[in-house]
């Protein structure tokens, strides 16, 4: 589909080009016929030049060589008049008019799809009689070379690229003038461009930075020493500096081929250092902000993570050595813990980005979808400045894109239908972000037809997601649209389809610990609310022991912790137990069920009352609680793969890894057990 769009699009621009040629040629004719009245009028000549120039530019873009060639020749002659080297005479006006006619013919020929058009030799000869201007002559050499000869020239030195097969190391020293920044450039741009060539190590030299009182805010004080390992040639490296002229002084030295030989020793871990250490010389605005590369902050977050781990180590050592919390040492350590906690929170907010970056992309999605579905949609954005951690922001774009498409495709009615219903033919789509009790809420609200609960129910029965007669409240019915298999490829439209259903949206939101809620009113519209954590890199958790191993459970899923009395657990089926809780009973999952080691259960003393986002509860039985703390989250998928029940891990005070329990998995286990008992019944 995109391919057709592409050509249609290009065809439309081609048509615009021909329209514009007609306009330019008409203007050219008008100016030429009145030129004899005011032969000295500079602006007139300039306009004439521009007409021809403009045709040449477009022609080059569409590869219309004859048109490029002739307009170039014409233009270079006109340039002589424009610069005042020649004066306009009646004779030259006659030549120009002839040239204009030739241009008309060539344009017409291209418009009629490649009808051959030879430029008469006479007119070319007539033009060539004029002394040549600075622009070089197109050479009558093979055709495909010509275009390059016309335009390639002086500014694009032809590089002989000898691609090195192995990494070469370049040492580059970099210094920029204040003017460099004044031309809107930034050393950061240069460093990033270099980084794309290979592996870059950067060292900033701040020796020249004066004391703060002496800093002149717009001066450049820094120099950089870089080490670039790349397979690219020196030319490729130097090309990056090309635009900057004298404003950037770079000395590039080839050090040696990368170490392929050398003493046979065990390889030591070499951290790949791509940390961009970037500093602007000064800040432009008076507001006290500093631009810092995101990788530096990520590094800071990691380091504080290590600090948190070390803090845990100190505390566990203290316990082991029976150092009392009220002792002097204990107080210092507690104060330190508080400081690290604050430090961590501060740094994590530094990594936050306004949600604007995601919202802005969605504007295009909405326009495009509205066009494809022939609907009229007005998008209103609110709370664009709400800040969200980058790790979450990155994963938000896809689900939001899909949900917006969906809202336009299925939510908002056609302009006709809306008019009939007495609504504004233009649908309203509101995208809103705000903070509420420590979480970020993103709302997608449309004023469309609303969800049709009866139809959803029918369809879910059809798709065998529910059984006919099953009693569900309204909210449960709406949530059926998130069930896998609810939207199938067969009915997926061009727009919201692309092979993904709402189940994928829900899954990708769950990956970032997002929850989604729907409210809808028939005829009035639908609102999807997504609730997101502020960050994924730290969780508050309880560390517990089960089967001799330490695990962590996120504290926001634990409703209550109670002492487990094995005598109160009662048998409700093969390997299935219930446990009294308040005035009801909970299903029981033993930690040993999921960890996979058999146990007689004698050690199990603690019961977590676990609750998920749908407010379902269960009793999760473990051996004992060790501690309650904040944990730095490490994704297991980074180096391994998804595994059931644990998608993340953390590092404990003793340096060992502990897995973080995926609470949704427990409820999945519960479901399996329930299905198991269904089968038994049958």
């Amino acid at each position, binding site marked *: 589909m995109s391919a057709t769009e592409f050509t249609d699009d290009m065809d439309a621009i081609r048509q615009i080009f021909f329209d514009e040629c007609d306009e330019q040629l008409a203007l050219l004719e008008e100016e030429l016929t009145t030129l004899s009245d005011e032969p000295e009028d500079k602006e007139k000549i300039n306009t004439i030049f521009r007409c021809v120039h403009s045709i040449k530019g477009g022609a080059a873009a569409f590869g219309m060589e004859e048109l490029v060639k002739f307009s170039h020749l014409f233009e270079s002659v006109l340039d002589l008049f424009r610069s005042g080297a020649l004066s306009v005479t009646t004779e030259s006006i006659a030549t120009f008019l002839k040239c204009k006619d030739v241009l008309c013919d060539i344009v017409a020929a291209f418009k009629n799809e490649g009808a051959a058009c030879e430029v008469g030799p006479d007119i070319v000869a007539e033009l060539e009689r004029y002394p040549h201007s600075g622009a070089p002559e197109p050479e009558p050499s093979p055709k495909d070379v010509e275009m390059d000869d016309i335009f390639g020239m002086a500014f694009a030195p032809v590089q002989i690229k000898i691609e090195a097969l192995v990494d070469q190391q370049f040492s580059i020293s970099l210094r920029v003038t204040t003017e460099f920044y004044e031309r809107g450039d930034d050393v950061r741009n240069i460093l990033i461009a270099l980084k794309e060539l290979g592996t870059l190590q950067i060292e900033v030299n701040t020796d020249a930075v004066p004391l703060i009182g002496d800093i002149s805010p717009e001066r450049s004080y820094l120099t950089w020493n870089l080490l670039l390992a790349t397979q690219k040639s020196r030319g490729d490296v130097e090309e990056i500096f090309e635009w900057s002229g004298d404003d950037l002084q770079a000395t590039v030295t080839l050090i040696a081929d990368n170490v392929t030989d050398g003493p046979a020793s065990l*390889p030591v871990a070499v951290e790949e250092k791509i940390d961009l250490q970037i500093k602007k010389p000064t800040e432009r605005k008076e507001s006290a902000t500093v631009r810092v590369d995101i990788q530096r902050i990520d590094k800071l977050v990691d380091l504080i993570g290590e600090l948190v781990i070390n803090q845990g180590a100190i505390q566990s050592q203290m316990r082991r050595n029976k150092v009392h919390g009220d002792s002097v040492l204990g107080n210092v350590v507690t104060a330190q813990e508080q400081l690290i906690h604050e430090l961590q929170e501060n740094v994590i907010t530094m990594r936050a980005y306004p949600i604007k970056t995601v919202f802005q992309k969605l504007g295009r999605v909405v326009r495009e979808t509205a066009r494809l579905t022939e609907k009229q949609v007005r998008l209103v954005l609110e709370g664009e400045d709400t800040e969200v951690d980058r790790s979450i922001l990155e994963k938000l774009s896809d689900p939001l894109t899909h949900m917006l498409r969906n809202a336009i495709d299925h939510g908002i009615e056609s302009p006709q239908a809306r008019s009939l219903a007495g609504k504004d033919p233009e649908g309203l789509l509101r995208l809103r972000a705000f903070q509420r009790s420590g979480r970020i809420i993103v709302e997608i609200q449309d004023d469309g037809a609303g969800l049709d609960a009866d139809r959803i129910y029918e369809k879910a029965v059809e798709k065998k997601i529910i059984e006919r007669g099953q009693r569900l409240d309204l909210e449960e019915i709406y949530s059926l649209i998130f069930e896998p298999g609810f939207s199938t490829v067969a009915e997926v439209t061009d727009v919201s389809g692309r092979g993904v259903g709402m189940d994928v949206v829900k899954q990708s939101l769950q990956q970032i610990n997002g929850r989604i809620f729907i409210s809808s009113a028939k005829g009035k519209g639908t609102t999807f609310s997504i609730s997101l954590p502020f960050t994924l890199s730290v969780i508050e958790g309880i560390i517990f022991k089960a089967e001799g191993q330490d695990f962590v459970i996120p504290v926001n899923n634990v409703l209550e912790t109670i002492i487990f009395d094995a005598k109160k657990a009662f048998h409700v089926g093969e390997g299935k137990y219930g446990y009294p809780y308040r005035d009801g009973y909970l299903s029981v999952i033993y930690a040993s069920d999921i960890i996979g080691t058999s146990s007689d259960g004698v050690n199990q003393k603690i019961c977590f009352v676990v609750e998920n986002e749908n407010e379902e509860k269960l009793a999760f039985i473990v051996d004992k609680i060790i501690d309650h703390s904040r944990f730095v989250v490490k994704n297991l998928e980074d180096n391994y793969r998804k595994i059931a029940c644990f998608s993340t891990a953390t590092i404990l005070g003793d340096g060992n890894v502990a897995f973080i329990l995926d609470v949704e998995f427990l409820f999945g286990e519960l479901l399996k057990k329930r299905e198991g008992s269904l089968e038994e019944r049958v």
Partner: protein
Amino acid sequence: MIMEKALVFSLGSQEFSVQISAVKEIKEWAKATPFPAAPAFVEGAVNVRGSVIPLVNMAQMMGLSDDNDEKKAIIFLKDDKKIIGFSVSNVTDISDIDEEDFRPLPELSSDNLKYYSNGILSLGGRLVFSVNVSSLFEGSLQ
């Protein structure tokens, strides 16, 4: 005549090798935190300077032995995305490999061996199975 360096290590009494460019780090073997739901050949997860990395018993994954071999070292290998640690009996040395040292595996080799190894190296009379790094990663992530 393409020269390459390979890290030679042993699993039980048999020697194996991997290309040195895939080796990230070598450490002394240490006990990992067991992965509850992973296959038996995955010993668990270890912490290497703040990263959580899976530890795989290479011999067991290749079907060469049970978990009884002595394990002295962990070889951390990297592909373009992930780092995985493999426990091995011992790390022997680093050798220059010449293309001419390569011999194809005997036809009768087990499927497992054919999957994980791309040939035999004869290094001065020693018989070393050259191990495919990509197969190791595929096998580990099963």
